[in-house]
């Protein structure tokens, strides 16, 4: 009797032990982020929070390695025509969707037509703008079928570009260019992004999605490189409150977090040391004058104010060295681009203030007869602190600065409709590594040209660059354009370059800092 019980007990214990080792063997990565993705439909995303999760779920024609270099993804090779306008991609023969069906060129044709289709209303439709007819289709002047893409056979995908586009391969790593399974989207047009319904071709498949709680991805056995994927499951956990996220990280509830509370940075550095990862990032934090309004239409005045702002102070004291003082619109890190810097970049702060004061006095502004200026910014602790600092920096020059913060939608609503303001805060994070992505913001008539800057030479240089086949000459044109629009005319006042902010537990390996802040789980492992 006793022995029988004992046997049962032992057997039970053995099963328990087995199960627990099995459970232990599963490596789960807890990835914290500041927000949920807006959508898991790769063609409907619009924020940076979707990027990594979609890189895990899908594989575009091109993928990114651990350092965000472009490597073959769903395409194993490609051929570019001599004029740079036709790309022919050879899809990998072992490329499969998570349901086991092959990834075909037809899927890519379907997906790309879907992206540019006006009925999809994809916010990133412009990522395919270099493709023949893409913009006309989005503007409903043409049918989606007229897009310059074609499936030559099941595994050969051909793309016609309007002009040679050196950054085209780079764009293919962006989620807007990923393929979705044609069969699946046609079968489940409304809920193919739901767990259980989603079919993807990346290293992971979607298992659970509870908004504001977690998104669970599990390893995709059908992925062509599944053998090298070391992490079995990833939980993407949104944590809006950055301070609370630091506590969760400290408590071990998160293995990594993709943001930092910058106001605590000095203390966090002291506490977490090199677990804090701050690196260059392709983004610029800038102020824009309303250049069509008096007195801001005066270039001299704009330059004087820009000159007087102490960017080192902003970077060091306001952002705790998590941003970099910026004297150009296009951030460093774009290969092949040598952009001009603002003339006073090398001047000492005092000389700059003296020079600025001189200009202001010439224009008739003195502390007795101050210039009034209102800084508009969208609600955020850091934007507020930047504005406060600039307010106090401009005070000795006889500029009376008032601050006005409004919620994000009001702020950008006003800017977009070209409403009334003096100077306003804005920012741009690059979608792909190319100066054009920034410089287009000063082009006449662009929706994002909040300054309403307009200059024929500038527009002409951008147009010339767009048609230029030679990459070096193209970069030269863009650099000349920046010299006119930003350096000479201050169409924007660049203040800071963004940095990527991450905190990574030492348990996580295979995480490398890179300028795109791209970190597919595929390369990571956890001890």
């Amino acid at each position, binding site marked *: 009797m006793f022995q029988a019980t004992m046997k049962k007990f032992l057997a039970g214990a053995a099963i328990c032990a087995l199960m627990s080792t099995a459970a232990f063997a599963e490596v789960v990565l807890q990835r914290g982020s500041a927000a949920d993705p*807006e*959508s898991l439909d790769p063609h409907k995303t*619009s924020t940076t929070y979707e990027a990594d999760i979609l890189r895990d779920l899908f594989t575009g024609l091109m993928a990114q390695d651990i350092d965000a270099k472009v490597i073959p993804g769903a395409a194993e090779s490609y051929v570019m025509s001599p004029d740079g306008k036709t790309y022919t991609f050879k899809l990998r023969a072992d490329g499969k969707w998570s349901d086991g069906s092959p990834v075909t060129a037809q899927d890519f044709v379907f997906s790309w037509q879907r992206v540019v289709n006006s*009925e*999809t209303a994809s916010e990133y439709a412009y990522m395919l703008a270099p493709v023949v007819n893409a913009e006309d289709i989005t503007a409903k002047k043409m049918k989606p079928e007229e897009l310059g893409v074609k499936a030559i056979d099941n595994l050969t995908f051909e793309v016609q570009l309007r002009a040679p586009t050196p950054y085209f391969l780079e764009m293919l790593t962006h989620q807007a260019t990923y393929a979705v399974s044609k069969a699946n989207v046609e079968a489940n047009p409304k809920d193919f992004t739901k767990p259980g319904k989603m079919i993807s071709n990346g290293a992971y498949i979607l298992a659970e999605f509870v908004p504001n*709680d977690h998104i669970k991805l599990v390893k995709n056995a059908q992925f062509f490189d599944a053998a090298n994927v070391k992490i079995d499951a990833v939980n993407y956990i949104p944590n809006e409150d950055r301070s*609370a996220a630091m506590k969760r990280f400290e408590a071990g509830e998160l293995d990594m977090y993709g943001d930092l509370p910058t106001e605590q940075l000095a203390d966090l550095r002291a506490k977490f040391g090199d677990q804090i990862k701050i690196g260059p990032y392709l983004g610029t934090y800038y102020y824009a004058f309303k250049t069509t309004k008096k007195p801001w239409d005066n270039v001299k005045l704009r330059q004087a104010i820009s000159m007087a702002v102490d960017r080192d102070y902003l970077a060091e004291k306001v952002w705790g060295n998590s941003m970099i003082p910026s004297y150009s619109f296009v951030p460093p890190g774009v290969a092949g681009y040598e952009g001009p810097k603002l003339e006073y970049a090398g001047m000492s702060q005092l000389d700059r203030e003296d020079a600025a004061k001189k200009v202001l006095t010439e224009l008739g502004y003195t502390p007795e007869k101050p210039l009034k200026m209102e800084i508009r910014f969208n609600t955020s602790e850091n934007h507020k602190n930047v504005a406060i600092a600039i307010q106090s920096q401009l005070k000795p020059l006889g500029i009376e600065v008032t601050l006005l913060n409004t919620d*994000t*939608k009001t702020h950008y*609503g006003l800017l977009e409709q070209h409403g009334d303001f003096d100077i306003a805060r804005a920012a741009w994070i690059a979608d792909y590594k190319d100066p054009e992505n920034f410089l287009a913001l000063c082009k006449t008539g662009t929706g994002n040209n909040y300054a309403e800057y307009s200059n024929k030479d500038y527009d002409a240089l951008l147009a010339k660059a767009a048609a230029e086949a030679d990459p070096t000459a193209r970069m030269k044109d863009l650099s000349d354009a920046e010299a006119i629009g930003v350096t000479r005319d201050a169409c924007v006042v660049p203040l800071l370059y963004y940095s990527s902010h991450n905190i990574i537990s030492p348990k996580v390996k295979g995480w490398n800092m890179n300028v795109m802040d791209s970190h597919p789980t595929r390369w990571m492992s956890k001890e």
Partner: protein
Amino acid sequence: MLRYVLQRFLTAIPTLFIILALSFLLMRIAPGGPFNQEKGLNPIIKANLEKLYRLDQPIWNQFTDYVWNLLHGDFGPSYNLPDFTVAEILSNGLKVSILLGLVALTCALVFGGILGIIAALNQNRSADYAVVATATAGSTIPTFVIAPLFQLIFALGLKWFPVGGWTGGGWKVMVGPVIVLMLPQLAIVARLMRGAMIESLRAHHIRTARAMGLSDFSIIVRHALRSALLPIVSYAGPAAAALVTGSIIVETIFAIPGIGRYFVDAALNRDYTLVMGTVVVIAVFTIVFNLIVDLLYAVLDPRVRYD
């Protein structure tokens, strides 16, 4: 009674309609729209989006469409979370928020009530002061201070509870949010209870009961408490509606997938359909809880009758 309830439900329909119309209008005259963002959109793409969500229609048509769909149980799609319908978002969030809210409310009523009675029975003695002081402290410290302090002390320091999260955390994840949600309510309940209890202990029928030699306990429970409950009940209705519809502060700090943050986020994001969804939810809850309060009033106070 039944007729009264029915009648209330009938009057709730125009109420809801007026609220919907008001909110719709208010939201639409607010500057900015759902597709204004830091990464500004190309006007063509924005126009496509607006067409997709029928925002290019005249506002009156949009409103009638919305109401028509609503009558068919369709809350519409969310603009900022296009993977989900508003109904899915709200029902996901409500499950969590109702649970948290009801637990917090029950705790607040029970503990607050007991504290209030203790204070009332010891009026102007040290126990009274102690209760009032503690209760007051709970309501004077903003929740966004209590919550991180709780995390620091009980989660990071003592490691009794997780810092945040919801799924897979068991009952332990609830402790922090419940305490933080409960504290301000607890204070108010305790103070209301104390005040009402003191009042009702002075009433004639209690004095009579005392004079007749009834025990303190039976006086409190059977007589005084009954009338003292009135202000609590009228407070608990709106409080319940507020609690079960979540709190953005608790939810963001503890990373809880409740409904509360949508009230703020949707309004700030101009996610019109989600805003309307939250408006409907809160309106329905308020109407229902108010009805419950009025019915309880009739039960507790025989002088109030609804015929």
